[in-house]
């Protein structure tokens, strides 16, 4: 009898095991291990970014936009891995003509506070951003509607509750891309004040997450929005934890105190983590660039031959390998490789590697005596602690050619940020981070005769081409124009592109989905990230 009894228990146990093994997984973030339901998953995300304001009208920095991108939405968005705007709060959008853009809005969408999303909220949000003209805000991105502080009521029309028409001040093919930026994100007109910024702990949007807790400088807790109109997040909750130093963030990801570390760790930290146990380093395309600027009012940079010789001599590969341990790649155009319309114009014209012989010839043809005395400015911390090494490398490569004698000068950003744009530096370091995912942001900003750079570069052909691409809604035509602009820019060389950064995230074992969000849009989409047990 006893033997029979144990047999029964054994059979039941085996059946139970088989049933458990065959049981379907709840949909989680994807991954090879057992996937807890999203309801059980909390992702801890560590970053060294900081928050300026969680109000779209009060911020123009990546740290703030990162949270806004996960809690709020615009009419359009850049999907993961994509590079063209797609509908978000809009059902569809299109140009009626180059200055008129109409969007049909999604129905039955509600804000986190339960108020309905309508066309009135779109008008309110944009009007508010422009009128508030916050010193830290990005109202300047909405310049196609109206200048900051000078709202034009005719610029945005709520045709009905679910239709909005934008009447642009001038043809602007980049307008759909502008609508993907937090500057154009939608806030509830019933909740947000028209004449002041919303407190950070009271942000309300329509996005996949709502804010559960805000502790300034410490952490932000986001909870999945059960009423989100789009794809449900792969987790229940995200806790964004803020670190003052990259070394602390590195320790935290190593020790498992955070699940994901994104922005910003040094190349040394990243190299160290690549061999570490329990973590995986993910890389993806970036759009952050560094470049060297010539103020054309200063000698000898005012000489075209000098600029071209520098372009022929600078050793981008050495910078990428020796200084940045391969976390950046050489850049041969001011338009990053990840953007439609990019060409390697500088590589085609000057070669990918230093060519001192060609540079010697260039200077000789122009009758310029060598070595050319060149004063180059850089700033120690704003563009990362490796700027010193980067510019030492630039100095080395220029002087090794025998054609240049380089004096390096530096000053902290407080002085540098004003001096660089007020005709005080002849040649200097700058960096750029995209506002929106269109090559226009990289050409108009730098090559227009009204460029913020103030380097006195004026080329009417370029200005005409810039206006032409902005007025064209034909993407193929625009890309051709971008190619022409890059070609001319390489010939004139007011600016030399140096490198383009990759995007790096470090994840703990068991975390999934993060690689899908590493794209040139620079949005870390928390809703894609899951975690196995």
């Amino acid at each position, binding site marked *: 009898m006893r033997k029979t009894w144990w047999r029964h228990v054994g059979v039941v146990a085996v059946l139970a095991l088989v049933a458990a093994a065959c049981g379907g997984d709840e949909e989680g973030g994807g991954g090879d291990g057992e996937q807890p339901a999203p309801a059980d998953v*909390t992702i801890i995300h560590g970053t060294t970014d900081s928050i300026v*304001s969680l109000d779209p009208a009060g911020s123009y920095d990546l740290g703030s936009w990162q949270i806004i991108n996960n809690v709020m939405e615009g009419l359009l968005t850049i999907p993961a891995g994509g590079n063209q705007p797609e509908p978000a709060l809009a059902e569809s959008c299109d140009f009626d003509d180059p200055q008129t853009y109409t969007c049909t809005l999604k129905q039955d969408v509600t804000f986190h506070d339960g108020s309905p999303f309508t066309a009135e909220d779109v008008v309110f949000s944009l009007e508010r951003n422009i009128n508030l003209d916050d010193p*830290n805000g990005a109202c300047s991105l909405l310049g196609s509607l109206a200048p900051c502080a000078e709202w034009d009521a005719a610029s945005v029309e709520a045709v009905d509750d679910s239709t909005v028409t934008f009447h642009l001040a001038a043809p602007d093919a980049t307008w759909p891309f502008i609508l993907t930026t937090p500057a154009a994100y939608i806030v509830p007109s019933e909740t947000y004040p028209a004449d002041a910024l919303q407190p950070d702990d009271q942000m309300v949007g329509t996005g996949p997450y709502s804010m559960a807790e805000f502790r300034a*400088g410490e952490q932000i807790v986001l909870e999945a929005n059960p009423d989100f109109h789009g794809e449900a997040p792969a987790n229940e909750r995200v806790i964004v934890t803020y670190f003052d130093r990259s070394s602390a963030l590195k320790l935290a990801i190593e020790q498992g*105190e955070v699940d994901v570390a994104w922005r910003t760790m040094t190349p040394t930290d990243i190299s160290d983590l690549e061999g570490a146990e329990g973590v995986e380093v993910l890389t993806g395309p970036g759009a952050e660039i560094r470049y060297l600027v010539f103020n054309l009012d200063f000698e000898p940079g005012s000489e075209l031959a000098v600029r071209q010789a520098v372009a022929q001599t600078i050793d981008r590969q050495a910078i990428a390998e020796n200084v940045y341990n391969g976390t950046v790649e050489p850049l041969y155009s001011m338009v990053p490789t990840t953007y439609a319309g990019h060409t390697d114009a500088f590589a085609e014209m000057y070669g990918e590697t230093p060519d001192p012989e060609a540079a010697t010839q260039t200077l000789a043809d122009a009758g310029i005596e060598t070595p050319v005395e060149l004063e180059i400015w850089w700033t120690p911390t704003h563009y990362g602690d490796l700027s010193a090494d980067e510019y030492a490398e630039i100095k080395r490569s220029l002087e090794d050619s025998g054609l240049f004698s380089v004096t390096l000068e530096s000053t902290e950003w407080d002085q540098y*940020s004003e001096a660089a744009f*007020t005709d005080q530096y002849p040649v200097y370091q700058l960096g750029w981070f995209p506002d929106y995912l269109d090559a226009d942001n990289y050409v108009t900003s730098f090559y227009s005769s009204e460029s913020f750079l103030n380097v006195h570069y004026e080329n009417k052909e370029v200005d005409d081409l810039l206006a032409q691409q902005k007025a064209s809604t034909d993407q193929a035509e625009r890309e051709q124009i971008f190619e022409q602009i890059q070609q001319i820019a390489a010939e004139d060389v007011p600016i030399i592109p140096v490198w383009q950064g990759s995007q790096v995230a470090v994840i703990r074992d068991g975390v999934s989905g993060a690689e899908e969000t590493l794209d040139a849009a620079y949005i870390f989409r928390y809703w894609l990230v899951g975690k196995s047990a």
Partner: protein
Amino acid sequence: MSRPTTALRTYLITRVLLAVPMVLILLTVVFLLMRVAPGDPISAALGGRLSQEEIDRRRHEAGFDRPVIIQYAEYLGNAARFDFGTTLIDNRTVTSIIAQNGAATLELTFFALLIAVAVGVSVGLVSGRFRDTPADLAGRLFGIVAYAAPVFFLGFLAQLVFGKWLGWLPTSGRASPIVSYELESRTNLFVVDSIISADWDSLIDVLEHLVMPATVLGLVIGGVFIRLIRVNVLQTMKGDYVEAARSRGLPERSVVWKHAFKNALVPVITVMGLQVALLVSGAVLTEQTFNWPGIGSELVRYLNNRDYIAVQGIITFAGLVVVVVSLLIDILNAWVDPRVRY
């Protein structure tokens, strides 16, 4: 009796009145330092993205280019009303920073002070009692090294050994993110809040996060106490009343612990108060090292962003704390010691 009381009252009133110009000098120095240094929050954040014309326009709209004397008068007027202003970069009131982040610093410095006293008193006592022995030498050496070693160096070392190599303790933050979120916050002091909530798991988590930074900072302050206690013990051991106790046939242990030790501790109370300044400055570095979200961390962040309103407010608050504590210590000293008079 009336003459000593009058002298004490005179001393107290004079000390309080002297605190006023001290505070005014502090406010003025902080204001001038921040104004003299180049840069402003808008240039710091948006320089290199917007044209200089646009940046100048925004600076003008924000009032950064108003005459310095007008800004100074406004600043003093607000300070008199305990309105330390609103930060420029993230629109937080300085008062809220003090309340939220100040609680984190208070928690850190309180436990650091406990550790400092525990370590300083015990090691100093042993050193003084067993003068010129290996125990004395070890104690003195320990005190010097603890005091001289930069707090961030000790912090990094502790993180490496106890965090990375041994994996015993977490390396950053006040608590795990989830605990930090779920703990019911009534006082912003996590230890107190977890006790009030009877949330013992959270208490353990909070204490685990507190151990390293508090010990590191406490050791630095403790180094000061070690030397002071040792010197005081040596002096009191030479005192007449100690000889008298010995001559009455009391055991040596009783002579040391019941007589000499108690008197050796009296000046420590004064020194403890004076170490507040050292605690606050040490807390800045400790908080940076351990990602501790105190006012020290916030001060550095606002400095880096050239937010002079925030920096003024935080430094003024910290300075006021030091002034008030020094004043209280002086008053206590005057009350205890009749020789302390003007």
